[in-house]
């Protein structure tokens, strides 16, 4: 019997043959943390040792509340900077770089076949580049810093075959929302999700990141795409380490194989207050909202901003809607700037914010008041996530958010394509 990608990587790391269900002790290749590094440092200090065991494995990226919006956040950042300098951590990215998952990827840490653990649930993103990447908690990160080892259960794998050709106006975000809506928020709990199929294999890196990122919303431990030539090319000048592409064997054993044909897929919208409460846009059209957000680790790359700009070019957003645009990273910001994408968005009345998590987790930069409604390209719409518990959040693709911003109500973007 062949092995799945996850069995292979965890087996390689554990130094033995393993099967889904086994518990292994492993050392990751890289360990990510962000603003929560301050809390991790606090735990680390309780361990009674002075130094991080493998400082070269740590990647610390400030993104959650950047620049600091209060004295407390400022103190957190200061604590982190001092620790970075004291422990000689070279992979540190201060507040001007962007969202951790984008920055981690574009700086060549997310590599095929690597084992990456991060103190963030959307660490699953790096599966888009063929890595085994999973989210863990802060105590585990502190403990990893000290011992360089952790126990992990080898996950069963769900294979999702995505076939067909995406119709105009329908994007990767619509596919993953459709899948989560059909399968439910818990379908992949403790499991790996592997994407294959003729449509999936053609996806750009940006689109792959959307799907891998949102496997977290199905409960997945990790997501996976087999990297193609274009991605290997992209990695060539960025890779921070040598790597080897690893993929599942043709006769690997899967917990389930699911099929999706996207040829007749409609744009999808996740309705309040769960990500699996998904409806086709035709069922929620006309829903009024107050704030739009185009950005986040899910949909803040050039590809997303370009889609929005094509729809908003030469037009003005609805006067009753505030449209926030947050490029995922400084690199993506610069690309969008050079291509004139940001000029179009600003011209249409959008407000461009600095790369970072922005209001996605309700900490700053566009908090919702009671009774307000947001339409966002983010990955989560839980009650209270963007501010008031009496606010509502709808999730959609950048195209749907851009088109809806023109009308001031949820709109089918296909009219504008």
């Amino acid at each position, binding site marked *: 019997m062949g092995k799945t990608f996850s069995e292979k990587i965890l087996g390689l790391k554990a130094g033995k043959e393993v099967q889904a269900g086994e518990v292994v002790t492993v050392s990751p290749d890289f360990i990510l943390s962000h603003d929560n590094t301050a809390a991790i440092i606090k735990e680390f200090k309780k*361990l009674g040792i002075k130094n991080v065991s493998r400082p070269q494995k740590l990647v610390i990226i400030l993104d959650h509340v950047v620049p600091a919006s209060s004295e407390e956040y400022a103190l957190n950042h200061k604590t982190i900077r001092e620790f970075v300098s004291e422990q000689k951590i070279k992979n540190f990215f201060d507040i001007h770089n962007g969202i951790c998952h984008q920055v981690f990827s574009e700086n060549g840490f997310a590599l095929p076949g690597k084992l990456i653990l991060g103190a963030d649930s959307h660490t699953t993103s790096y599966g888009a580049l063929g890595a085994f990447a999973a989210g863990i908690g802060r105590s585990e990160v502190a403990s990893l810093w000290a011992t360089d080892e952790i126990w992990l259960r080898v996950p069963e794998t769900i294979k999702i075959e995505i076939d067909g050709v995406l119709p105009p106006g329908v994007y990767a975000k619509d596919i993953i929302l459709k899948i989560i809506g059909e399968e439910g928020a*818990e379908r992949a709990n403790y499991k790996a999700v592997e994407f294959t199929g003729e449509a999936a294999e053609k996806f750009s890196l940006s689109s792959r990141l959307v799907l891998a990122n949102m496997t977290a919303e199905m409960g997945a431990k990790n997501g996976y795409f087999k990297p193609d030539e274009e991605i290997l090319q992209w990695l060539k000048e960025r890779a921070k380490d040598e790597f080897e592409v690893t993929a599942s064997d043709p006769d690997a054993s899967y917990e389930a194989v699911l099929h999706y044909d996207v040829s007749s897929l409609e744009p999808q919208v996740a309705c309040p207050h769960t990500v699996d409460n998904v409806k086709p846009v035709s069922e929620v059209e006309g829903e009024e909202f107050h704030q739009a957000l185009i950005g986040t680790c899910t949909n803040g790359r050039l590809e997303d901003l370009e889609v929005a700009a094509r729809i908003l070019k030469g037009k003005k957003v609805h006067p009753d809607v505030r449209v926030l645009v947050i490029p995922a990273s400084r690199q993506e910001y610069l690309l969008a700037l050079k291509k004139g994408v940001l000029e179009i968005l600003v011209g249409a009345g959008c407000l461009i914010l600095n790369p970072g998590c922005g209001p996605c987790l309700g900490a700053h930069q566009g908090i919702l008041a009671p009774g307000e409604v947001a339409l966002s390209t983010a990955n989560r719409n839980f009650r*209270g996530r963007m501010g008031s518990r009496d606010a509502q959040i709808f999730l959609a693709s950048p195209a749907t958010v851009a088109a809806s911003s023109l009308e001031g109500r949820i709109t089918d973007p296909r009219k504008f394509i």
Partner: protein
Amino acid sequence: MKKGRVWKYGDNVNTDVIFPGKYTYSVLDPEEMARHALEDLDPDFAQKVKPGDVIAAGRNFGCGSSREQAAACLKYAGVQAVIARSFARIFFRNAINQGLPVLQSGEAVDSIEDGEEIEINLALGKIETKKGVFSFSPFPESVSGILEEGGLIPYTKKKLEKNKERRC
């Protein structure tokens, strides 16, 4: 283990309603964290919860963010254990790592009524409710060791000390 009053909730109780994101980097004090526990799900909870109380919930408890404060704030609020039909993966690890027992038993959850007093025996893997006694699989040794030490940090600390002694 002592008896505890049950707070019963539904499916998909997520980390944002357990401990809102807006507090994750600003509220660090245990007592203050406890005051925000379950704030966006049940504003009564933090005011009325008593040490030893138990949360019983449906599927996918703790889904969403990796923020460990979601487990920590429940522990700081005095919750002795969470019983659920199922747990989201990261929350499950975080709870153990905070020394908060997380017990998976759909049968127990079905039987338990909001507000009733139940008794949990971790060592025997038993939950005693008004309607009967339900079992859950006891934790494997690696996990129970962490729980016994009160969480991963004290567990790792002890391990590091032992390694050091061995080297001396």
